[in-house]
């Protein structure tokens, strides 16, 4: 065939080859612990009674393109779950019991059990500083798309003052019929972002461990959501194993 037609193709391929010849590929499998929490604990939250570990697996692949001897750029795609299940004691905490568009709002004193789930596709874009073959530091933003989510819970073993602390006092018990349930899943923000920082340690040529911290900077809920006084941010740390493909 015509040589001139083949030439740019070859050039392209060699450009691509040139670009990718030193790109490193990584697979990651991790487990996350964290919470969807306000920045700074409001005084109305008095005590954490339970923190129940959730099936927060994350797996994904990263590519790192070295730019100099120490610096490089990381991009990847992760599929991960950021879930939390906590039980807290609150005092005079502003809350809303909701179901099917009906609400009962007021100040609650008692116990609160809440459960958040969000499965996301996350794309990290990070600067990498490589100390040596074993140690790497990573820093940069991430962007997440929420594929499925939940935020629900119930207030129990306490009382609600309807509207404000001078309103009718209504006791809540601890059975299905006596609790105050809420469900805010429809108010979860679908596209979220934040900053990530992490460290990789490779103890063998192909195998390593990593620790990442992903700090959400967009609120967990849409900005139109006013039920909770505080904006909640997903803040999760991930520990896991990494595999270097080449």
């Amino acid at each position, binding site marked *: 065939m015509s040589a001139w037609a083949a030439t740019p193709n070859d050039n392209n391929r060699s450009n691509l080859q040139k670009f990718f010849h030193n790109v490193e590929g990584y697979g990651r499998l991790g487990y996350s*612990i*964290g*919470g969807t*929490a306000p920045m*700074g*604990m*409001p*005084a*109305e*939250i*008095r*005590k*954490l009674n339970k*923190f129940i570990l959730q099936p927060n697996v994350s797996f994904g692949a990263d590519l790192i393109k070295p730019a100099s001897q120490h610096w490089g750029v990381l991009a990847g795609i992760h599929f991960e779950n950021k879930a939390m299940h906590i039980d807290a004691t609150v*005092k*005079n905490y502003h809350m809303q*019991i*909701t*179901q*099917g*568009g*009906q*609400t*009962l709002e007021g*100040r609650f004193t008692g116990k609160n059990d809440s459960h958040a789930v969000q499965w996301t596709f996350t794309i990290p874009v990070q600067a990498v500083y490589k100390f040596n073959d074993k*140690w790497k530091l990573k820093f940069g933003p991430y962007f997440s798309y929420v594929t499925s989510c939940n935020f629900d819970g119930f207030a129990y073993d306490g*009382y609600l*003052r*309807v509207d*404000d*602390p*001078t*309103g*009718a*006092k*209504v*006791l*809540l*018990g601890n059975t*299905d*019929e*006596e*609790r*105050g*349930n809420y469900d805010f899943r429809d108010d979860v923000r679908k596209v979220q972002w934040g900053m990530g920082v992490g*460290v990789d*340690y490779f*103890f063998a040529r192909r195998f390593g*461990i990593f*620790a990442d*911290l992903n700090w959400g900077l967009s609120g967990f809920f849409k900005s139109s959501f006013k039920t909770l006084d505080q904006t909640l941010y997903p*803040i999760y*740390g991930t*520990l896991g194993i990494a595999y270097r493909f080449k």
Partner: protein
Amino acid sequence: MKLKLNKIVVLVAITALSTLMSSCFKEEPLNAECDIEKAWVHVSNVDAYFYSPTDSLIEVISTEDKIVFNMRDGADITALAPQFVITDGATITPASGTVHDFSNGPVTYTVTSQDGNWSRKYTVECNRVSHYTTAVWNFDFEHFELDPSNESSYYIWHNTLPDGSLGNDWASGNAGFKLSMKFALPNEYPTSVLEDSYDGHGVQLVTRSTGALGQMSKKPIAAGNMFLGRFNVTKALTKTMEATEFGIPFTQKPLRLSGYYQYSPSTPFIDKNFNEYPDRIDAGDIYSVLYINHDRNGNPVVLYGDNVLSSDLIVAVARVASVNETNGEWVHFDIEYEYRKDIDEELLKERGYNLTIVFSSSIEGATFEGAIGSTLKVDKVRLTCETKE
């Protein structure tokens, strides 16, 4: 060395995480509530002031801002010093235990919360109970208003006392309905005013849906109800049966209860889990109960939804045999009190009996069974009592 670094990484990660988790708890905020929870009057000779010593202590429910001590006819109320249990840390003015003259009417107290942001006003009244000797009590449901303490959301009624003054003896479950349906209009409540009734205004009781919120807590309906007594909304979502406190002290012997009603049952009949029962037809309920308001140990007793027709303390019951479809016509009822025990005249005078009269649009409404839309209309109720020459 390798291992050490490894450990440090893990340690740093764990420290960072646990710092996030606990985020350090702040100091406990000061209390925001400002309730009078209990009120009592301590006098050396309690029998000279109160019919029953237990009348000197009042458990105030959260929605009440009027505290009424019912006292003997001749009690000296010019220098009494009510005392209060208020929310922890709150302050009350005038102070608990200060002496006031109650002969000029109620005294107003203000309670301010510990955090200083909230306050409530209460009036305390010493009511010298009149002993009526009326042959027939009239309940015409002509005196009603939108509850002034509740952003005018539902109606409350005042009964006309024999001396012409207005009492606060009728109660309904409207406050409980409001918990799930706060945007309902006054005539969308289970208990509302009936215009163009048998004679002037009457009362309209409709079994209502409590919507998704009520269904979630297995209380999918609220029967329209009206009764002599008190509704304690604090228990509306938990000890539901105890929310309806049936009965007011009554010092006459009731003989007959009469009046007019209309009833139309709706369909389908459902239970608390929203199961439908095509074979069951809803019915209304009209009854009255007279009972002894203290137990053997002298503790005050009030009957609730689950024992108002079964308690051992019941002395007499009058109940319309069946309240069924009336096809839009007013039906007259006139029933006799059936006495199970003899009346102790002395105890009667000493306010030892409670009387309730109950109307409900669904006979099993207390257990959340009935049909949404079942309607009971009531008017011109008469209570005939024994009169002594």
